[in-house]
């Protein structure tokens, strides 16, 4: 009994043959034919042209055949809305068939056909089925209401289906109740009105059904219970009482959903004994999750993370169950480690440290690093354990395993920040490992330690000097740290470092492209030149102690996530509206603002103040800067616009001139930066209802196969950028007689180094007349040849086995622009000044679309050209300053002047590599005139 034979019909004329078979009088022949059709559909072949023929087989009493036809109709009705209407008759007939299975099947399938003229015909059968005497039909009809609501909410509301659903909560059959609950919950989430309200009346119905329905039904009901806010402590207690037996269910989702209900209702219970008892009851089922399948363990752990933050007492004695097993999957180990840190306390720390030490010798590098970091975090968290932690770290350093040593140094720096002047004894050991450091973060940490304790390290100047030699090749993190540490050394031991400080200031201010480094260099320079003592007070001031808040979510977020236990939100640790596009909650999202956009799932360790506070002047000073900015702000756009007139060129080295100008524009740029990722996520969200799949639709252009000598293959394609990744979307159609396989792709060497990430295409073989869509990730790290003219046309070839096809595709320049293009005002300014006048270009772009700078700029922002500030000049002109950054880190600075009278947009631009500008202007003109 093998169905695989249905897949093996690839000969020519098969469609015709299928048509014949579908017309056959014999039921078994028809069934065979439909199976072949479904098989073709399964492998992605387009068999929609058989629609009418398959439809003809619908009127049958053979349930198996009927199911197959329904499956087909579901898949292709959308392509043939006009013909799908032909199915309505049969659907309606089936919906009143004596066999309940067929009635249910008809309603279920009809609901899946999202064609307007069909939905209208669905209403009558649906109304009958909702009141059907058979529970199986009723439970199917309940879900069908949710389907219909998704297509046409007005229709559902006007037909009164929602009232019927609410009545169904009192149905005698628990599964019907559960499905009605599921449908109502979902509709309520997207509806403008409240259509599902749990009150004392239906609460009891739900609780009764909870005991009797299937495992899935229990989940729906438990989820719905979370919507209810108990009116009294007693009520909350009694709900919890009814829910706790569910903790013994074999289905983990039932268990986690019950825990969600308990966590929520516990907030309303005043009796502390009851709360304590509930907490005690929750612990064992949570631990049991850890003996389930690894994926469930992972989910359990992500949720335990939240529960422990909210109610640490639940699992406080359960440390041992979180010890990692050697063969746990890595994602389970990482989560266990996180929870071990959370549960670590003075009593269990020794045991825990032994475990961490053990993990630090394992194979997986990332896990080992996290284990080392965990030791550091415990040291910071538990004062009395710090000494033991340091000892373990020193033990690990003696293993000489490169990445262990580096990670250990990074965490020891943090420990120094928490316990200053306590463990300098270990510095000698650290210094002995200098040469093994090759990671920027470890280097920077080591340099920070040397600078901080310069007075106690005799050869501090030699050590720093050794780093200084390779200054230019270092990562900016290291450069910044080196600059600071040398200044510190100079302040502490002026004689030893005079030469070095001169060198490093020169390197930072004169030979670096990095504005941060330059700015910091200038600040130090002026500071040192003006007042040595003041510099000392500022740079060597006492730093605030750090705490470990890595694993702590903000209260409001935590509470929201607790209400979402077991869902994806609890896995991502992000509120639902950040990753779900279709929610009425999106409006609520406005209140929450942009806070979570750049929040990483695993926030980095708290040490970033290490770079800021220790180096940026003193807190008072920077506050002044902010205050000043706030005063300037209200003066309106004219003032902000004039920042371009600020002249930085007279700020000659060594002579600090006007500090006020320096601190000119803090504040606003930050706002800008926050907004832009927000915009991006909006664009990246894809269409909501019925929209395309994840990436936006790409308009592929026919590139090969249009000329007579082109044979065998038709290729269309286009480049696109989505979520920070460039890809080439290709569509291949095999027009030859033979099957093609082993596709490879190659690009000609080009100016931007654009190459496919993987030259081998993952599309398998392409049968004659088959077509396929491929998305090819693109790198910009290929060999680039700067001599070549930057061109927009990419020459590409595709090689299936032996043959080669050459073609050209236009590469839209904006695909090269990265998401981190926005600059703040000062950087923009200083960059503008630093680029020679020679590179300035200007060009007038006639605007042929509606002349609306707002929408044009918004459209540009979506293409990663970001506005920094805008000002109005007179009545007729608006000037906007923009920046963008290419994949190879070239900044392009723009000044667009929109003239309302002439409908012309004048573009003045500057960049360090002017040879790309012609191309850029061309693209800009296109983008302006083709918004979105």
């Amino acid at each position: 009994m093998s169905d695989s034979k249905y897949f093996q019909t690839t000969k020519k004329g098969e469609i015709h043959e299928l048509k014949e078979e579908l017309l056959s009088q014999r039921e078994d022949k028809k069934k065979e034919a439909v199976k072949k059709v479904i098989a073709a559909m399964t492998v992605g072949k387009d068999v929609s042209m058989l629609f009418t023929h398959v439809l003809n087989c619908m009127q049958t009493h053979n349930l198996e055949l009927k199911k197959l036809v329904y499956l087909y109709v579901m898949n292709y009705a959308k392509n043939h809305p006009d013909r799908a209407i032909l199915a309505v008759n049969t659907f309606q007939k089936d919906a009143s068939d004596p066999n309940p299975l067929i009635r249910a099947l008809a309603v279920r399938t009809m609901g899946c056909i999202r064609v307007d003229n069909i939905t209208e015909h669905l209403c009558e059968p649906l109304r009958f089925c909702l009141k059907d005497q058979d529970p199986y039909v009723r439970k199917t009809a309940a879900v069908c209401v949710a389907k219909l609501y998704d297509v046409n909410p007005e229709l559902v509301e006007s037909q009164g289906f929602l009232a019927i659903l609410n009545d169904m909560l009192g149905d005698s059959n628990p599964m019907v109740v559960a499905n009605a609950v599921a449908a109502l919950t979902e509709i309520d989430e997207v509806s403008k009105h409240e259509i599902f309200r749990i009150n004392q009346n239906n609460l009891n119905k739900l609780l009764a059904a909870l005991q009797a329905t299937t495992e899935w039904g229990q989940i729906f009901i438990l989820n719905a219970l979370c919507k209810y806010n108990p009116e009294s402590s007693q009520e909350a207690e009694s709900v919890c009482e009814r829910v706790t037996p569910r903790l013994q269910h074999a289905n983990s989702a039932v268990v986690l959903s019950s825990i969600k209900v308990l966590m929520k209702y516990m907030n309303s219970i005043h009796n502390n004994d009851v709360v304590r008892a509930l907490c005690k009851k929750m612990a064992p089922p949570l631990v049991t999750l850890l003996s389930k399948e690894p994926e469930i363990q992972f989910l359990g752990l992500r949720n335990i993370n939240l529960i422990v933050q909210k109610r640490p007492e639940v699992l406080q004695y359960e440390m041992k169950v979180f010890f990692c097993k050697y063969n746990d999957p890595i994602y389970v180990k990482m989560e266990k480690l996180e929870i071990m840190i959370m549960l670590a306390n003075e009593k269990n720390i020794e045991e825990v440290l032994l475990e961490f030490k053990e993990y630090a010798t394992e194979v997986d590098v990332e896990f080992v690093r996290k284990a080392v970091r965990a030791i550091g975090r415990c040291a910071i968290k538990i004062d009395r354990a710090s000494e033991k932690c340091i000892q373990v770290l020193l033990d690990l350093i003696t293993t000489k395993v490169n990445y262990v040593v580096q990670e250990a140094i990074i965490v020891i720096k943090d420990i120094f920040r928490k316990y200053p002047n306590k463990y300098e004894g270990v510095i000698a050991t650290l210094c002995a490992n200098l040469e093994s450091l090759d990671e920027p973060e470890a280097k920077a940490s080591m340099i920070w330690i040397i600078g901080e304790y310069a007075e106690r390290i005799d050869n501090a100047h030699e050590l720093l000097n050794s780093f200084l030699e390779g200054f230019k090749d270092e990562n900016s993190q290291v450069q910044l740290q080196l600059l600071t540490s040398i200044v510190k050394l100079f302040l502490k031991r002026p004689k030893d470092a005079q030469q070095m400080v001169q060198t490093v200031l020169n390197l930072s201010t004169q030979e670096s492209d990095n504005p941060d480094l330059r700015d910091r260099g200038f600040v130090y320079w002026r500071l040192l030149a003006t007042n040595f003592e003041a510099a000392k007070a500022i740079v060597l001031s006492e730093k605030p102690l750090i705490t470990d808040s890595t694993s702590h979510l903000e209260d409001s977020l935590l509470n929201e996530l607790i209400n979402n236990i077991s869902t994806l939100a609890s896995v991502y640790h992000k509120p639902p509206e950040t990753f779900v596009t279709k929610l009425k909650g999106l409006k609520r999202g406005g209140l929450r603002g942009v806070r979570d956009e750049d929040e990483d799932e695993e926030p980095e360790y708290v040490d970033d103040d290490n770079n800021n506070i220790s180096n940026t002047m003193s807190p008072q000073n920077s506050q002044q800067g902010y205050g000043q900015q706030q005063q300037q702000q209200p003066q309106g756009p004219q003032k902000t616009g004039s920042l371009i007139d600020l002249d930085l060129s007279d700020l000659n080295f060594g002579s600090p001139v006007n500090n006020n100008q320096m601190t000119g524009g803090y504040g606003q740029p930050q706002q800008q930066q926050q907004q832009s990722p927000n915009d991006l996520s909006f664009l990246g969200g894809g269409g909501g209802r019925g929209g395309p799949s994840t990436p936006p639709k790409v308009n592929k252009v026919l590139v090969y196969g249009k000329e007579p000598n082109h044979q065998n293959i038709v290729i269309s394609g286009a480049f696109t950028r989505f979520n920070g990744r460039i890809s080439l979307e290709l569509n291949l159609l095999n027009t030859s007689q033979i099957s093609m396989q082993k596709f490879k792709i190659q690009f000609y060497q080009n100016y931007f180094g654009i190459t496919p990430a993987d030259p081998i295409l993952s599309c398998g073989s392409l049968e004659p007349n088959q077509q396929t869509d491929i998305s090819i990730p693109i790198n910009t790290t290929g060999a680039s040849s700067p001599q070549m003219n930057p061109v927009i046309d990419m020459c590409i070839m595709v090689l299936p086995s032996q043959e080669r096809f050459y073609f050209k595709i236009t590469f839209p320049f904006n695909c090269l622009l990265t998401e981190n293009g926005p600059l703040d005002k000062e950087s923009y300014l200083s960059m503008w000044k630093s680029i020679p006048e020679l590179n300035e270009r200007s060009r007038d772009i006639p605007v042929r679309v509606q002349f609306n700078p707002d929408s044009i700029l918004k459209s540009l922002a979506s293409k990663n050209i970001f506005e920094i500030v805008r000002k109005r000049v007179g009545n007729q002109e608006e000037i906007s300053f923009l920046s963008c950054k290419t994949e190879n880190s070239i900044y392009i600075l723009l000044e667009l002047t929109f003239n309302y009278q002439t409908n012309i947009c004048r573009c003045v631009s500057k960049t360090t590599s002017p040879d790309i500008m012609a191309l850029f202007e061309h693209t800009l003109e296109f983008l302006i005139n083709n918004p979105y």
Partner: protein
Amino acid sequence: MISALFLMNSKGEVLISRIYRDDISRGVANAFRLEVIGSKETRSPVKLIGSTSFMYIKVGSIYLVGVSRQNVNACMVFEVLHQLVELFKSYFDNLDEDSIRNNFVLVYELLDEILDFGYPQNCSTDVLKLYITQGQGKLKSLDKLKQEKISKITIQATGTTPWRTPDIKYKKNELYIDVIESVNLLMSAEGNVLRADVSGQVMMKCHLSGMPECKFGMNDKILMDKERAGGQARTTRRGNGIEIDDITFHQCVKLTKFDTDRTISFIPPDGEFELMRYRTTEHINLPFKVIPIVREMGRTRLECSVTVKSNFSSKMFGTNVKVLIPTPKNTAVCKIVVAAGKAKYMPEQDAIVWRIKRFPGDTEFTLRAEVELMASVNLDKKTWSRPPISMEFQVTMFTASGFHVTFLKVIEKSNYTPIKWVRYLTKNGNYQMRI
């Protein structure tokens, strides 16, 4: 809710797709292939690409992928996926590319029934086999069933005991209980028990007629204490109660009843099923103790001596005992001496594998080995990570937790007395000793 389910092979080619909601298209499978299968760095079973979430498990060479664009109950999705695997296995024995192709019509039909608009409806084999009969030639096609019979099916499928039909008849009423315990152990190199726990399973095979009400009893400490306090102490009951940390039950067990008076009562499904799972951590009798000594003698030699001691009555014995002693990757030769069983160096596992078919109770055996290492060519400073020694075994009629069944009552209208069988088996879970 779940927007789509994909079954893919290890290359990421879609074998079967079933799209439940309009918010995604078949094309998202491509994103999954590129971002998850194609990328080696994926380290989580949940992946968010754009605003589409992928939840997946891998069984053999098959990926089962649930896709959603909502804030779906992720745990539920994984439960569905895992139950789906069980379901497929019960319909066509093993789950691989061929079996899916061979049964694609059936798979479609099942997928249609299991989820409706992405809401799980029923994954239970007992129920589905009532009306999804594809590929099971023996069963009568539904078309020929009488109308009342179909209504019976639908009522049962949605009712409170969907797992059992009322008209089951056996000539001989029999009941088999298997208590299977897996012992998990993590021992430090110094011989301290870092953690030890037992996860037990009570498997049942019922050949019972009618709608029997069963009550199951075990030596649960809480229950026994309760009975004692209630003055019902029966001196005849042997042994002490054991402390059970947590129990989960098959859906047939009345949880509310268990919550109120800790009685386990249920109407069982027909045939085999898992009645309950439990977990204990207190007073565990470890069936085997391992004393390992592994010494690295310089850079090219390793000496180890591993002693295994059985810790149960001499009347019993362990079977299929296997000890896995890891060796470094650059092992050249192993000289092994064992007192019992056979031991061999297995280069593909980087370990010495020591097998003892029959291990009597209360005895100890030792393995001694000298391992010669190839002088490592590359100056890799990384030392050998010393993975733990692991062990496999089975001991029958022994429970590490001390669990035993105290009674099983069957009450049925026709008042028959079934024949009952109970077996106990303890085997290894994650049984590891660090060295």
